[in-house]
């Protein structure tokens, strides 16, 4: 069989060695009423030739970003992934290893995780970062829960409505069974969180206050304002980032008083893959390290005194602490944290800056183009942006998408996709721009808008 090397004869020899007369013997303690002797109700095995044909046909029905001009973002941005990344990820030593429980035979993974932690800490301006979270939304939830543990006996979390609606929905889902109140703060005219409302909502019962920047409408928020509002009432400030390239041109949360940074790091060479696997992150001050969820890698020495890495502070974790653990996470996003690490290593200081500058310049070019239009389109908000903005579409979002589609352009993400259970902003299209789009693509989109 496919990936069962032993042939029927070899299996028979093993069966004989264990003293069983048939495979059924090995399953003797399964209640007979539920034990199936017949084959499961699936089609016969498919060969590689058939798999290629069948799945190839499925894949051909999806819009691949390499074949379309794409302005899709909404929390997941398609940046350049260097060619070497996907090739090195195929190395069996990375691909087919697991959590580095045994450091002597896992220095490869461990070193890479240590590097990932370093990149995230540097980018967010925090002291430390963990080895990865599943993705942005659960990282955000874990940050909120962590803040609660750190602040003791408080019950309220204040969140901006500029946080990605799916993140907020996850927060409500995970917090449903805790006695916590979630207070949402609306955005102002400029698309940024209403600072006065935010400050007013924070009280002594508040354990955490959270903002996202750039927010779900692309608008850059103020970390200073967040930190001030939170710290005024001894709450912790949580900063969410899901377009990490913004941190190459914008001050990081950690440098502006934000206590915990969390979000999505998929911008760094992680393929969009229809939304997963991605790579969440969580970074914070050194003082909070005993409450951080997930794995942490630390530097130590081996018996010869040589430097080496291992998992550390694991008494926080479920396999030791069980119901008192800081999280139930076990399997994380290892391989894609590695992809991000590889990509960041190649980008480096220069590449981060250059990429961010290109995203910014192209976005500003497109925004200027939109402003110069005479038709039924406008920028929804006046706030500063990085590489995404909300376009108010007079003709309706779907009409714009449809007309762009004819030109092989994916014009953007209807805000309604982020917030299908909500009701607001139905006329907004989120338009995101990365370095992958050449000027001709930007002009192509402007032509589409001009055609209305």
């Amino acid at each position, binding site marked *: *069989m496919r*990936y069962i090397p032993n042939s029927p004869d070899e*299996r028979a*020899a093993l069966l004989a060695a264990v003293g069983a007369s048939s495979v059924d013997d*090995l399953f003797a303690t*399964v209640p007979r009423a539920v034990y199936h002797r017949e084959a*499961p*109700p*699936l089609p016969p*095995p*498919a060969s590689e030739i058939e798999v290629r044909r069948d799945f190839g046909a499925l894949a*051909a029905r999806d819009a691949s970003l390499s074949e379309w001009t794409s302005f899709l973002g*909404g929390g997941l941005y*398609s940046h350049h992934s260097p060619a*070497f990344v996907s090739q090195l990820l*195929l190395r069996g030593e990375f*691909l*087919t*290893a*697991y*959590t580095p429980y045994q450091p*002597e*035979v*896992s220095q490869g993974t461990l070193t*890479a995780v240590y590097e990932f932690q370093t990149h995230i800490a*540097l980018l967010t301006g925090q002291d430390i970062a963990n080895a*990865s979270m*599943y993705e942005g939304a659960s990282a955000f939830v874990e940050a909120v829960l962590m803040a609660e543990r750190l602040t003791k006996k408080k019950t309220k979390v204040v969140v901006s409505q500029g946080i*990605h609606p*799916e993140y907020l929905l996850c927060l409500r889902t*995970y917090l449903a069974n805790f006695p916590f109140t979630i207070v949402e703060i609306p955005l102002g005219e400029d698309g940024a969180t209403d600072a006065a409302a935010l400050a007013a909502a924070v009280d002594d019962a508040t354990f955490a206050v959270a903002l996202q920047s750039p927010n779900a409408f692309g608008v850059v928020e103020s970390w200073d304002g967040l930190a001030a509002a939170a710290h005024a009432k001894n709450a912790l400030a949580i900063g969410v980032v899901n377009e990490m390239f913004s941190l*190459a041109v914008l*001050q*990081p949360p950690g440098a502006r008083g934000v206590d915990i940074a969390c979000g999505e790091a998929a911008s760094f060479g992680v393929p969009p*893959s*229809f*939304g*997963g696997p991605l790579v969440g992150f969580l970074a914070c001050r050194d003082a909070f*390290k005993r409450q951080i969820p997930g794995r942490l890698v*630390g530097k130590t020495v081996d*018996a010869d005194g040589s430097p080496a890495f291992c998992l*550390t502070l694991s008494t926080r974790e479920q*396999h030791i*602490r*069980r119901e008192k653990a800081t*999280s*139930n996470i*076990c*399997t994380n996003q*290892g*391989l894609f*944290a590695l992809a991000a690490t590889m990509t960041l290593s190649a980008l*480096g200081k*220069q590449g981060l800056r250059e*990429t961010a*500058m290109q995203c910014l*310049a192209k976005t500003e070019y497109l925004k200027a183009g939109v402003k110069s239009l005479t038709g039924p389109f406008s920028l929804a908000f006046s706030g500063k942006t990085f590489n995404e903005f909300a376009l108010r579409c007079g003709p309706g979002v779907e009409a714009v*998408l449809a007309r762009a589609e004819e030109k092989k352009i*994916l014009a953007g993400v209807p805000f309604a996709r982020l917030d299908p*259970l909500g009701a607001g902003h139905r006329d907004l299209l989120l338009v995101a721009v990365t370095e992958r789009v050449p000027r001709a693509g930007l002009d192509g989109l402007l032509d589409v808008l001009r055609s209305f």
Partner: protein
Amino acid sequence: MTDHGTLTEGPLVRADARLDRRRRFGSLFDAARSGRTGVHLPTLDVPPADPAALYGDAHRTEVAGEIEANEVDVVRHFTRLSQMNFAIDTALYSLGSCTMKHNPRINEEIARLAGFNDTHPYAPVHLSQGNLELMWRLEQALKALTGFARVTLQPSAGANGELTGALMIRAAHVKAGNPRKNVLVPDSAHGTNPATAHFAGYDVVELASNAHGTLDLAELASKLNEDVAALMITVPNTLGVFEERILDIAKMVHDKGAYLYLDGANFNAFVGKVRPADMGVDVMHMNLHKTFSTPHGGGGPGAGPVGVAPALVPFLPVPTIENDRGIFRFDVDRPDTIGKMRTFYGNFGVLVRALTYIVSYGNRIHEVAENAVLNANYIRKKLEPFYHLKYTAPSYHEVVFDDKKQAALGLHNIDVAKRLMDFGFHPPTMSFPLIVPGALMIEPTESEPREELDAFIDAMIAIAKECETAPEIVHGAPHTTPVRRLDEAGAAREASRPGSFAPVLRAPVR
């Protein structure tokens, strides 16, 4: 098996580690490189922006401390790093409970098709029909294998699936008028089980296992009452033992209006042979990175789909994927939904690999379970004379020895594990089950060929002998790995010291 006289070779003369290019070259942050980059973009084709003017004092001019390296540096660094890892592709990876089976290469190829890998979750649904159909098909296949009414593919890993299940159970109890208070968890359970129960807002009540390592039905009866929301069990349990009385257990749980949660981490022991729904299970997560061969990737990603009985269907996270006569769509209009467990729809790339695997086996997938169990029993048979087995009930996909014999000689499970590295194998799991002190939990999986099993067995036997004849070699192991045995306790001490974050938990800014 082979009988070898000498178990060790003579000394080797290695070059000083600092001069040996293959070892201990540290992190990319260590080296003093400057002015390099490994990514080159097209020349900017629009007017440049002025971030300083735009952002004022919120402008950041550089990410200080970041690497400055070229593609050459980076490719070499990660190639060298990889060479310091053991992996399934190099040899049997005996890490029990993790189902370290072969990761088929066709799965990687298919998952990398641009029409899957380079697609955006918010692309128009009519331009994503292939993706939706794939998810729908996977749900159908998992339903066929489990017998559940529906399966959500959204959870990001096993533990996340557990939480999804626990939240659905709670939502169902809430809807029925009483969330209840407790979740029962056997003492043999994996750590994620109690942790999950806690994060779903429940108190954990531990059940002591009986002498066979299975559930003690009297104990269960004594703790089961109307405050109990669910029993979380693992089948076969973490000892590799099947809960023979699973049908009785299900009945007892249901009689109290509680739900039966099955941790499906060990589904590999019975996939295609037993449908969990038939056993009375109400909800179960599957670890696609275990049973369905998606790569573990040095820690992840996984995927933890959850199957549910009809009663729990209303509570599934949104969106579900529906098939309207060949047109696939997302359904968010589910009033009782618990909400969402994550952004988007799940670890789609992992789902692609899992479905590829399932169609590759098709209606012969039960052979996976049969051979996983056979291989584990073969190892058990061969190693029983050399290692102590605390629980002797029949083994399924894994066998849990312990170090009782070796401890008498002053050596422990960790010594055996470390010495195994010198023989080229990845050690067994030692951190649990907590009911077996000094555990050596071995799960070979079905994808190990006979000669690899024998080689592993030979190594384990050789070590058992070394424990008697050359204990200092075992105690000092490993000897041939890129680094020697680590000071993990020291690391934890140092890491927990306030302010020690750099360079302990990250590289310092140079």
